[in-house]
């Protein structure tokens, strides 16, 4: 059959029949079309498949970074940032207090710096979110041939529960590779951290680091309080929460004058024996936020003060509370009012 093509061609060259040329041309056109279809089909299939697999791999990498790495990096940067900040607050001269802890700690978590009226302070170097995200850029370039860019717009820390903080980052991610580009704009990643294990800035800064305390939640239930439980509570240095109390939240404790928090206030009691000598035996309530607040021993101008000595075998004196706390800790029978 194939030689007949040649025959057609020879026939055409002999110009004996114009139809021979016509049929030869038709067959050549058809052969060309079919060849083209075959070559396109086979080569194209492999290429498309390879591209699809590569896109899938890169897409998986980006999703993993977005959904798992950034939240984990945020958690780590928050933990490091908060700890470093407290340490920085009491080691500086003069002491450093925050004015808007949620935002300022966010900045420290993001890039390690704290803006103060006197300038920019570097709090943290290697454990910032920007530092952690730059590690992904390296692996994206080296392993996936991808140019990755992550912009951290904003990091903010909020108190979401008495014992929990939420760190939230707003970021954009763009990735460029030879086969596709990705763009994820203004994404939010969050990390929830327990405050247990974090240092309390109130103790650290107000005692110049000589009496530091780490947050641990007491297991005592509100109905269980009595002088014996209070004695254990003071000795352990744990924290508790009273519903409807005036205690500040953990984040508020980064301020020089912390405000009370109805949702998230927590408090502990000061152990007089652990205080620096200069501030021992104060005529104040030993509930921590009242102890570290500036106050006068006789605010009522000669009237009986709202202050009670607590005397019990389980409690090492001196230990004083105001009336509100005497009731909360259920030590009214061990309390005696201090006269002005």
């Amino acid at each position, binding site marked *: 059959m194939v030689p007949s093509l040649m025959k057609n061609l020879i026939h055409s060259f002999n110009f004996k029949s114009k*139809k021979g040329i016509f049929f030869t041309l038709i067959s050549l056109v058809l052969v060309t079309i079919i060849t083209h279809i075959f070559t396109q089909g086979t080569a194209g299939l492999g290429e498309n498949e390879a591209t699809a697999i590569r896109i899938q791999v890169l897409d998986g990498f980006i999703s993993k970074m977005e959904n798992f790495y950034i939240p984990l990096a945020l958690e780590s940067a928050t933990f490091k940032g908060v700890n470093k900040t407290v340490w920085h607050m009491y080691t500086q001269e003069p002491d450093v207090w925050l004015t808007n802890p949620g935002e300022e700690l966010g900045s420290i978590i993001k890039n390690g710096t704290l803006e103060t009226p006197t300038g920019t302070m570097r709090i943290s170097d290697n454990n910032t979110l920007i530092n952690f995200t730059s*590690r992904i850029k390296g692996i994206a370039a080296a392993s996936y041939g991808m140019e990755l860019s992550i912009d951290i717009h904003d990091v903010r820390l909020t108190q979401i529960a008495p014992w929990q903080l939420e760190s939230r980052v707003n970021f954009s991610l763009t990735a460029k590779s030879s086969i596709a580009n990705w763009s994820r704009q203004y994404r939010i990643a969050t990390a929830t951290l327990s405050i247990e294990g974090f240092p309390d800035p109130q103790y650290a800064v107000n005692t110049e680091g000589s009496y530091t305390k780490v947050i641990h939640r007491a297991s005592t239930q509100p109905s269980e309080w009595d002088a014996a439980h209070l004695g254990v509570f003071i000795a352990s240095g744990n924290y508790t929460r009273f519903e409807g109390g005036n205690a500040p939240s953990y984040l508020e404790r980064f301020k020089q004058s912390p405000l009370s928090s109805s949702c998230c206030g927590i408090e502990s009691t000061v152990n007089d024996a652990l205080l620096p000598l200069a501030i021992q035996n104060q005529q104040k309530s030993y509930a921590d936020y009242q102890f570290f607040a500036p106050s006068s021993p006789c605010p009522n101008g000669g009237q009986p003060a709202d202050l009670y000595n607590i005397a019990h075998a389980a409690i090492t004196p001196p230990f004083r509370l105001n009336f509100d706390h005497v009731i909360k800790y259920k030590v009214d029978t061990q309390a005696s009012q201090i006269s002005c």
Partner: protein
Amino acid sequence: MHKRGFFFTLDAIMSLIILAVGMFLFFTAILSVPSASQTELIAEDTMAFLSTTAIENLNDPIAGIGGTLWQQGKITKEKNTLLQQIGEFYAKSDSQAAEQFIQAVMADNIPQSHFAQIAVESQLLYPAIEPQEQTSSKQNTGLLIAKTEVVFGVTNTTTFELWGPYEVTLSVWQR
């Protein structure tokens, strides 16, 4: 005249059929490569097993909860995937524990007909020292499948030390 037209058309169509069959055979011959299915499947299944199985779901006297490495305090986080645990050993520069761990978890995954190795950030962890037989087999193999995953984690929840991201590469080939 009309009959000749039909003849030529028929002739051309039959030529086309022959050419088409010829091209089909030619291209399919070009595209046929050594069968990748078995090696590919071993690599894919092993990587899936390592990246989705948590320590707590592993019943192994060396790598599982309560196993040798757990009792030695080298494995502490039961929620870690096996791949994360390999990354953590690398982060702690404990290549001996890494090799012991990988050996334990890979034992049932790689058939005798195949070799496998695991490297983190291009550092070979399993086997830590490649036997000569394996090296020459790798050099002479016609097909080596390498699967890569990125791992990261925190060393513990007390200090929140972030490690990674590291690139873990699993290579599988036929002996």
